[in-house]
């Protein structure tokens, strides 16, 4: 992610690292062939399974392709239909809502964890390891864990919440729309804030200690230091953490597919595309939706590149 920031340096380094001018000629020709040969497997795979499908998608989206059987060209009809499709629109609004709900807590918790461990006090390394553990386990496995623990009566969530006096009776968490969304959001914050912590920690370690020392001399408060030093210096890391988190939410699938199986109304865009293609068999229509998603993701990624460019190297 965010590789554009690296691009100028790549060119520079490749030139410097490559054969010198003296050795050009026959040798350079051979090196050139070797270089092309070395990258060719990667290029073949990317062309075969990313670029070709992307082009194919444009074609499919202009047809009424069912999963099986004949199809014909329908022009832009799929795209026109999209605008009036309440089901698709609902999934878009739902995905945006979900993104708006989880992004701030993931960031705040991740920032808090990074700030808490910033001084590398006793046990910081162990705590970092633990806070990142949910992410390591993977969202599919995490969702299966909570599939068991969110069940009424037998699940651990109800058990702990009732012991703490937060809920008094059994909740069928995943059945109701609001409670399912709350439960999934809390799980995702628990899952993803470790990643934000790690990205911000990387940024924080790069801030010169002298800045804080100078602020201490001036008698700056903790808030003033965070606000005036940490946040501005972390601009790149913060942008990156937020964008990774936003893209992750836009593409959410596992947690809703597993935890909100029978909950109509909790379909994310990706889930809606999947269902349109593989349970309603409207492959052409689903592909039109997917291409809209590509455009949105590409825009967000480009926005990321703009945000991460310009300023000085960390």
């Amino acid at each position, binding site marked *: 992610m965010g590789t554009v920031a690296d691009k100028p340096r790549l060119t520079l380094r490749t030139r410097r690292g490559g054969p010198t001018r003296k050795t050009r000629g026959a040798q350079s020709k051979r090196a050139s062939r070797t270089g092309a040969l070395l990258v060719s497997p990667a290029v073949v795979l990317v062309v075969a399974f*990313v670029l070709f499908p*992307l082009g194919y998608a444009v074609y499919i989206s202009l047809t009424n392709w069912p999963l099986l059987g004949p199809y014909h060209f329908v022009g832009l009809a799929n795209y026109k239909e999209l605008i009036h499709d309440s089901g698709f629109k609902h999934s878009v609004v739902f995905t945006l809502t979900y993104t708006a709900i989880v992004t701030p807590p993931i960031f705040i918790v991740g920032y808090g964890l990074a700030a808490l461990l910033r001084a590398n006090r006793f046990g910081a390394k162990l705590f970092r390891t633990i806070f990142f553990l949910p992410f390591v386990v993977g969202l599919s496995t995490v969702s299966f864990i909570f599939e068991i623990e969110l069940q009424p009566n037998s699940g651990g969530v109800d058990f702990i919440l009732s012991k703490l006096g937060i809920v008094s009776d059994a909740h069928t968490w995943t059945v109701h729309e609001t409670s399912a969304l709350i439960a999934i959001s809390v799980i995702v914050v628990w899952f993803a804030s470790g990643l934000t912590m790690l990205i911000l920690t990387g940024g924080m370690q790069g801030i010169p200690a002298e800045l804080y020392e100078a602020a201490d001399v001036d008698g700056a408060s903790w808030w003033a230091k965070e606000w005036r030093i940490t946040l501005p210096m972390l601009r790149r890391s913060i942008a990156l953490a937020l964008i990774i988190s936003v893209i992750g939410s836009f*593409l959410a699938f*596992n947690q809703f597919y597993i935890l909100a199986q029978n909950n109509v109304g909790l379909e994310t865009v990706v889930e809606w595309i*999947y269902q349109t293609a593989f349970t309603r068999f409207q492959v052409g229509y689903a592909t039109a939706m997917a291409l809209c998603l590509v455009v949105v993701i590409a825009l967000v990624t480009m926005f990321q590149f703009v945000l991460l460019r310009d300023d000085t190297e960390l």
Partner: protein
Amino acid sequence: MTEVATYYEDVAAAPAPAPAARRRRRGAGFWVYLGVATSLAVVFVLPIIWAILRSFQPARLSSLAPQSADFTQMTFSNYRAVSHGQYDILPNLLNSVIVGLGTALLTTVVATLAGYGLAKFRFRGSGIVFGIILLALMIPFQAVLTPLYLELSDLHLTNNLLGLILVYSTFNLPFGVFVMRNTFQQVPQELVESARVDGAGFMFTLVRVMRPLIVPGLATCAMYAFLYAWTELLQAVTFVQSPEKLTLPAKLYEVTTSTYGSINNAYLSAGVVIAMVPCVILYFALQRYYVQGMMSGAVKG
């Protein structure tokens, strides 16, 4: 790119201050810090510990409210149940191992070659290659799910573990190529030159001369590819339908949807722990590479 990662590593790995110095600094603030961090650690680790304990709970108790007496009846019966007979998940576990290792191997080999080529050779079109890989980074697989399905279907690669390996490897390549390219850029050019002067071919140089220097990159690349393949669900349920070919997460999903009755929980809980084990082991064993990879994939590139 790795300055930050290295810095982070150095700081994180810095030895604790000498006991005397530490004791002096342990004021009230330290205990508040330790208390807060420990409570948070409990919140973060509890669901995982809970899931492990749950897997040793007898099936007949798993649909009842948890109670302390459960600890006296711990059993391996759930693991026995998922390792043979009707609810056997061992074939799926094997599928996941094959797909995971296959993806790790293919991604690492292809990314190493490409990283070597991009970092150490000048050739026409290298800019285009870079652009193509950059583009692949911007296209999430979710967005090309339907054309990929049709393509794999035409190639007879649906219901096929090789199909999964090819697709998983491709979507891991952008990250892998960047990691390997950065790794090769840190290999001194003099080393490459002197190997060439000594008459070594480019493959000999790669395998015999540079290998020790690129091992960290290889480990990062292989580990990320493996973990991706091990936990991926959407492509696994889209490209594979026949029950005996499902990977572990896809099989566990099937368990949640099917009507095994109250014993669902018991099977699922054992399956979840089996799914978790390689992730946790790799994380603890290769934590250095894990964090470095995260940083190289995140902070700079």
